[in-house]
């Protein structure tokens, strides 16, 4: 029994089990194989996710985990209400980064995700100003705005997930 879209808890134990194992079971060659995506789509339990990124690129894994989580959210057919960058997370929007060529380009990855899926990437103005991120060094796909945007996401999204230190 799945409650109405918009944040209800999925109550059926069978569905709960599926949700826990699903694709991971397939990936790890375990006995139980279920396709959770069908379950969710059929029952229409698609959600709006908010993501809060509290740390900058490379120093902490937060930005990486947030990005991979965001991709998985989209692959499952859910939507992302907003990704909000706070504290040192604002550095994910710097257009000055030059990481080694053989490693992931975190800033560009966010830009690409935003452009391909029309995701709202918001950088907190107060945190940005403290750390020297302004419009003139902001990477494509990001915009600077206020903390109100984070609260709005908390209100509007079905789930808000935080990645930090």
């Amino acid at each position, binding site marked *: 029994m799945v409650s109405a879209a918009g*944040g*209800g*808890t*999925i109550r059926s134990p069978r569905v*709960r089990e599926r*949700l*826990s*194992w*699903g*694709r*991971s079971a397939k*990936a*790890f060659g375990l006995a139980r194989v279920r396709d*959770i*995506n069908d379950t*969710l789509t059929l029952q229409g*339990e698609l*959600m709006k*996710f908010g993501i809060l990124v*509290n740390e900058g690129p490379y120093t902490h*894994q*937060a930005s990486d*985990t947030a990005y*991979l*989580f965001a*991709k*998985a*959210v989209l*692959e*499952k057919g*859910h939507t992302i209400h907003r990704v909000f960058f706070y504290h040192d997370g604002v550095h994910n929007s710097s257009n000055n980064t030059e990481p080694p060529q053989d490693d992931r380009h975190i800033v560009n990855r966010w830009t690409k995700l935003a452009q391909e899926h029309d995701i709202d990437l918001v950088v907190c103005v107060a945190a940005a100003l403290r750390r020297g991120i302004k419009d003139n060094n902001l990477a494509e796909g990001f915009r600077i705005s206020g903390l109100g945007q984070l609260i709005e996401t908390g209100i509007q999204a*079905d*789930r*808000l*997930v*935080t*990645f*930090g*230190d």
Partner: protein
Amino acid sequence: MLHTVNKSPFERNTLDSCLTHAKKGSAILLIEDGVYGALKSTPYTDKVKAAMKNVAVYALYPDIEARGMQDRTIDGIKLVDYPGFVDLVAEHATVQAWL
């Protein structure tokens, strides 16, 4: 509620804090360095196993694999990947990150 823990119990007390606040029926997902909390034969193993009587404990497998800790996790800890992480978030009404 779904609780996430992203730091090693050897480094920080976040796993401990989380375990003492997670109510019966909730779930804990260990991610990033938090996956070290999922391992057998550490000073924290017994505490985690005790918690597992009341709380479902999960670990993000990509983080375990990245750290070379495959085949060392406590029996009964469910391994999930990123899609599984998304499902866990969807399944629980709220998520709390222990940072």
